[in-house]
């Protein structure tokens, strides 16, 4: 991933060093542990489509429990699995508190593997979506604003978008197409594809690439 060592000793520290530092109260060590693993929590929360308030509760609960357990961590390689499983369990609890019908059957092995295979893909999706976000930042403001307004929630009418951006309604479609085409060629998207060779359209490796978890 990284081409070389950075100038920041925290970024180069191994997990054991970070854990020791975090437990001694060094907030930068904790922030680095979080930076390396937050996508696992984010992917789970998005898998369960929790609202912002639920997401906050789940994330804080997971991080608090991780801090309680950090001192017992013997195998740093086990950390991602621990975080992912802990977040999933907490997401399930919160979703059930909210009376959500998840159609989840804990007896079913098939379900477990379906959920976990889905999770593998979702982790890749989190990275892809981050690349899209970085790519959007590379676009000219007008194209970026249009693409973002077109996916606003709740949706905006073309007339409203035309008014806000001061462009004719008739040019919204073509501008969108040009914006999306340009987004595909941004450095962020190119970099995403370089780092994940199995995800090129038409390549066969993507199913294998997502089959972890």
């Amino acid at each position, binding site marked *: 991933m990284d081409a070389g060592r950075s100038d920041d000793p925290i970024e180069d520290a191994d997990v054991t060093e970070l854990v020791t530092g975090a437990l001694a109260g060094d907030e930068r060590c904790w*922030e680095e542990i979080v930076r390396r693993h937050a996508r696992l929590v984010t992917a789970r929360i998005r898998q369960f489509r929790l609202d912002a308030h639920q997401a*906050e509760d789940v994330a804080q609960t997971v991080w608090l429990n991780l801090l309680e357990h950090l001192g017992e961590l013997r195998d740093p390689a086990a950390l991602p699995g621990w975080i992912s499983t802990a977040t999933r369990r907490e997401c399930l609890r919160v979703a059930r508190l909210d009376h959500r019908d998840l*159609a989840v059957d804990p007896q079913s092995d098939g379900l477990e593997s379906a959920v976990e295979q889905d999770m593998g893909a979702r982790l890749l999706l989190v990275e892809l979506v981050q690349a*899209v976000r970085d790519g959007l930042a590379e676009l000219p403001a007008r194209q970026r604003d249009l693409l973002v307004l077109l*996916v606003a929630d709740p949706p905006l009418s073309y007339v409203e978008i035309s008014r806000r951006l001061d462009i004719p309604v008739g040019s919204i479609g073509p501008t969108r197409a040009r914006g*999306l085409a340009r987004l595909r060629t941004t450095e962020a998207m190119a970099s995403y594809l370089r780092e994940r060779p199995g995800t090129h359209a038409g390549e066969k490796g*993507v199913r294998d690439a997502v089959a972890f978890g």
Partner: protein
Amino acid sequence: MPWRSADGGRDVSDELTRWQVDDEVLARLVADAMAQASTAEVVDRAAARAFATHRALATAREELDVDLALLELVSDSLELAGGTVVRSRDGAEPRSLEFRAPDGTGLEVELRDGVVEGQLLPPRAGRVTVVRGDGGTTEVQTDDVGYFRVDGDLRGPVQLRFADGDATSSTQWLTW
């Protein structure tokens, strides 16, 4: 397929490649980018708050020279209930939880409408502390058989601690 994902069976793995050729898929990823950024911010903010809470509690513990034994969650009616509806926030049914230490001691609690009722196991007198995600605490004395009750709107991360004489134990954090 009997199972569907929480977001209605969206085929995520398909989207990992189709965005390169399909404008509708890429536009959906743009929508995801806006939503994911806010989730990621929430996750980061929660981590900072968790660290502050943990440090404050750890410092207090060190000052009091208290070692905490961690209790395992051995049952949660929300988990037992599988995907079926268990009403714990509208008063229809309480949520019940049981925590145990390796030596068999522990506590049972029931949550209903902002009220926590519970008992130490085995039954005996002690002090129970409810710790909230912001580090705030509420402490109550149990009766002679370990029964306790705490009123208040306990939502978000909560941890229970109890002390009986020389030993102090704590549950894991759970979202209430």
